């Protein structure tokens, strides 16, 4: 069992745009690593830095948003490559929860495996939350996975989170290996029944 993830409180980073792909979250050249430690420093690297290493003018570089733990973005966040390096890089930069219009499937799956809730909000809520975080970097977001409500700026917002992931997070079953191991006898039976490979 893992830590139960029920309530997350933090300030938000507003990252506008749809279809932000995992190559943008972590460029492939930073994936030459044997563990996922230390990837946070490379999160959004080419979004944040010029080729000569100079910092770009970007909200991710703004001192107002450093250390914030909730990332707000648009549609189809995390599309593209299956690299788990992407959510690890976000985790490394301090992100504990993501709020977006929708996610690519493998990315959402990877987030759940790392204990990061990837919440889905409708267009109106996404717009308001984005603006709220842009207008006031200090506004506090409070997410509750039991009530499925997000509180920000004196308002409650509804969000969606696939029930499988929600249960995994609130019951501390998001690290799936031990849950899968419980059915070892059934796995062994299935293995005997299904054809294997003889070269």
């Amino acid at each position, binding site marked *: 069992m893992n830590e139960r993830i029920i309530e997350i409180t933090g300030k938000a980073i507003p990252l506008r*745009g749809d*279809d932000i*792909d995992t*190559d*943008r979250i972590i*460029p*492939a*050249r930073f*994936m*030459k*690593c*044997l*563990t*996922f430690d230390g990837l946070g420093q490379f999160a959004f690297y*080419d979004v944040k830095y010029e*080729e000569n290493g100079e910092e770009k003018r970007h909200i991710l570089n703004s001192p107002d948003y450093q250390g914030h733990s909730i990332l707000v973005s648009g*549609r*189809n966040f995390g*599309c*593209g*490559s*299956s*690299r*788990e390096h992407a*959510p690890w890089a976000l985790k490394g930069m301090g992100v504990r929860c993501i709020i977006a219009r*929708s996610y*690519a*499937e*493998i990315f959402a*799956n*990877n987030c759940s*495996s*790392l204990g990061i809730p990837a919440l889905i909000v409708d267009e109106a809520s996404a717009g308001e939350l984005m603006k709220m975080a842009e207008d006031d970097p200090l506004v506090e977001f409070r997410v509750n996975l039991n009530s499925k409500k997000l509180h920000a700026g004196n308002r409650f917002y509804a969000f969606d989170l*696939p*029930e*499988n*992931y929600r*249960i*995994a997070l609130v*019951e501390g*079953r998001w*690290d*799936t*290996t031990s*849950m*899968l*191991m419980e*059915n*070892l006898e*059934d*796995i062994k039976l*299935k*293995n005997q029944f*299904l*054809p*294997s*490979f*003889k*070269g």
Partner: protein
Amino acid sequence: MSQNLLNKVWDIHKIKTLPTGQDQLFISLHLIHEVTSPQAFGMLGERGLKVLYPERTFGTVDHIIPTDKRERPFDDELAEGMIRALEDNTAKNGISYFGPDSDHQGIVHIMGPELGLTQPGLTIACGDSHTSTHGAFGAIAFGIGTSQIRDILATQTMALSKPKVRRINISGTLKKGVYAKDIILKIIADLGVNGGLGFAYEYGGEVIDNMSMEERMTICNMTIEGGARVGYVNPDNKTYEYLKGRKYAPEDYETAVERWKSLASGKDAEYDDVYNLDVSSLEPMVTWGINPGQALGVGDQIPEDADEQACSFMGFDRGQVLKGTEIDVAFIGSCTNGRISDLRIAAEVVKGKKVRSGVRALVVPGSRSVADQAEREGLHTIFKEAGFQWREPGCSMCLAMNPDKLEKRELCASSSNRNFIGRQGSPTGRTVLMSPAMVAAAAVNGVISDVREML
């Protein structure tokens, strides 16, 4: 109404429903490579767990391997370290491994089918989003993250929810010079890069029936670019002919074929959604933007409502036609279009011609076996005489984790699958996706061209 293939294969492989509501699915075949697996073996080690069924996992190197010189150690120490990690992990755990010197080394999604590992009715997983490629054989194949690689190594199962199935019927007659790549780019442009969310795509109809297995692989390969994790084609005689006699094909082949036939979706199978596409008027497709859905016919204008960020990054204007745009690099290869039929088509276009001066052009075969076959047919000579570099097999400039990269703002005509910002190794480099024939035409002319004018 009868069951579709996905539902049948799912039921066969399902262990049980988990407390989270997901299904625990047995994975018959697990493929690994050097970039996303070392961390999984690390996690396994930390927990004192062993690989449960090493005979169901196969490894090769593709993402990071240099395609020019293969002497060990590789110049890039990190690449050497990652490949050595895969070598150690497979050796220690008794997993079959096809390394740089193996006759079977290649891009993992090209290797699987070539060896006959990829078979109808299997569940297949690999830590790479283009695992959907294997669906061309009527397998249900998922791209997965590293935590799921760990799960499969430890339990041969993973937790996931069953997708809905969208049937995509493709009808009509393809014009000369229009290929499988153009069809899949069109499907993604029509349905959107997230249009497949929650769905598996079942491709069918006369155009798919008439396709070779390699063309079907190109279609299934890019399913993920349309937001669907799984794409497949029902197995048929072409599938059975292709697999017959391959290294890992079943010994009792007739029995296997009977089983495979029983898994195909029936004519009256039920689907959650249906999409029909007539490809008779389809033109060669090119991408103009920064995701694979931003694509149009080579003679079409970039739409007036085109995304501003995409246009500005690419340096294109709304209303512009891409035909005639100068290119710097031409790349033929990748799990999308690095197979022998792709190289044959491209060689046909470049035969007796020269790559335009100033254009850097590469052909990277998808596997050792593709390279050997091409060399037997003399394709390498055609490419080299035209001025292409003829490389060793690997992923190469599709994701540029090895030394093959764009530089600065270079524009690449590419037969690969992604045109994301920075995808080909330069943060400001630009990618225009197209079929291998179109890349060959662009290489020769030095500008984005309509290959139909050269056939």
